[in-house]
């Protein structure tokens, strides 16, 4: 195999330290657990929705009636418990898939009432990947039972890069939809201006806080052309984040600012990318070591008895030459 395909396979399967995948496990599953706990009051209100509002989607598409409150409670509790087990790396072979399935069920159920929120899509996909890979080989209770943490390996590298591929793919799909749906109007900013006005008017109409700056911003209509172009650059340009560590950092920064812009103009919180957790696989896909050395040392002391492979994983090859 030669050319781009070989470079892709080399990049995908380049070894990485077990700690790097472990960090993703803790961040992603930790985010999922926090989301379940923070959104518990909201989930409780959803259980009070009447049956005629049920619009099942995804894996629940064939379920004609909403699940009972008791069943929802059981699945939510199971999701939290298995999520905590994934965070601490306890029985990952069982906890990982359990968390993935229960989180998928809870979020699908939550989106099955006539409105898809799009805020947990990528989280669920990332958790699915973590469920089937050896993400608890380090920084975990599973690892404490072993004499030592394994050294750098491709089996710790490719899951990170698959998660990075998922991240950039979701942005790319959104960009393509804008071109296909909005066409040239998206490029001149009209669609974006209408969207921001629409969203804020609708929020105000149902008594929800709207953006304090939307009204002022909409008077400066020329701004929407560069804003729309920037949006498309972030979304359609997402695959470039996979080329080098520099493009990854640039893209992650731009994507984060893009989500800050959505908060400021529409008060819509995409907390997963705003927390940077969604973007971390892209940042880790190109090698380098785990950032936050003090945190790493603390986790090392907590979870490891043996010493890790001293030689850090060799830098992952880039897709770009």
């Amino acid at each position, binding site marked *: 195999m030669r050319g781009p395909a070989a470079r892709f396979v080399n990049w995908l399967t380049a070894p990485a330290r077990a700690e790097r995948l472990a960090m993703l496990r803790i961040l992603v599953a930790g985010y999922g657990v926090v989301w379940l706990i923070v959104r518990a009051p909201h989930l409780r209100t959803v259980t009070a929705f009447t049956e005629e509002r049920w619009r099942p989607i995804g894996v629940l598409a064939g379920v004609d009636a909403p699940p009972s409150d008791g069943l929802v409670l059981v699945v939510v509790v199971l999701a939290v418990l298995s999520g905590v087990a994934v965070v601490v790396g306890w029985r990952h072979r069982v906890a990982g898939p359990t968390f993935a399935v229960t989180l998928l069920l809870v979020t699908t159920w939550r989106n099955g009432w006539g409105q898809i929120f799009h805020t947990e899509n990528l989280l669920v996909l990332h958790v699915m990947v973590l469920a089937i890979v050896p993400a608890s080989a380090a920084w975990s209770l599973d690892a404490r039972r072993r004499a030592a943490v394994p050294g750098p390996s491709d089996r710790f590298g490719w899951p990170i890069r698959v998660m990075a591929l998922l991240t950039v793919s979701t942005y790319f799909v959104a960009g393509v939809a804008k071109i296909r749906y909005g066409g040239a109007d998206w490029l001149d900013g009209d669609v974006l201006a209408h969207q921001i006005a629409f969203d804020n008017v609708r929020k105000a109409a149902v008594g929800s806080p709207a953006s304090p700056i939307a009204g002022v911003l909409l008077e400066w209509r020329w701004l929407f052309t560069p804003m729309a172009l920037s949006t498309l650059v972030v979304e359609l340009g997402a695959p470039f984040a996979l080329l080098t560590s520099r493009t990854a950092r640039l893209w992650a920064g731009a994507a984060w600012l893009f989500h800050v812009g959505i908060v400021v103009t529409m008060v819509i919180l995409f907390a997963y990318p705003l927390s940077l957790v969604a973007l971390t696989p892209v940042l880790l896909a190109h090698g380098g070591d785990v950032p936050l050395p003090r945190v790493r040392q603390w986790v090392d002391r907590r979870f490891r008895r043996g010493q890790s492979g*001293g030689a850090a994983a060799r830098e992952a090859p880039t897709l770009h030459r």
Partner: protein
Amino acid sequence: MPGPIPAGRFAAGPDGRSGGPYARSSMDGDSSGGIGGDESAPGRRRWVPVLVAVVAVATVLAPMFGSPASDGFPLSTYPMFARDRGDDLRVDTVVGRDTEGAVVRLSPELISGGDEPVLAAVTVSRALAAGREESLCDEVAARVVDAGRTDVRVVEVVSEHHDLDRFAPDEPLSRRPRARCEVPR
């Protein structure tokens, strides 16, 4: 910083990949799970990550080749910001009226029983489409009572017409009542 490598335990293979002696011994009997974990066959197992990556990306990209408006979970084209809404908006909502007859905005919790504004608006539109505006009005009135909102005397299910280019959220061009009910006291 990591310490030195215990001999024969952690070192990667000569090509920098796994498959050295560390791998098999350290992961035997562990419970870290994972596919593609057959450390004894580094050549053969490369197809596993490639297959997973291709399937994962193809699955996420698949909605792109359907209708741009297609939506789902967790796979989606994220069409919510893609479509041109135009400058003419009809938004269905539920409002209150105080003793003077002035409009009082109600919260998403009062309108739909949940805290999501989008879901509140969708709930009203679906109720109107199903001819359930009267029962929705009664439900909201009951929640107004439960919330102790004594300032609200009347509840109205309405369709508001807005000019988005004018952008005046609290001053719709028109507000058409669809159902009206007294708040029980």
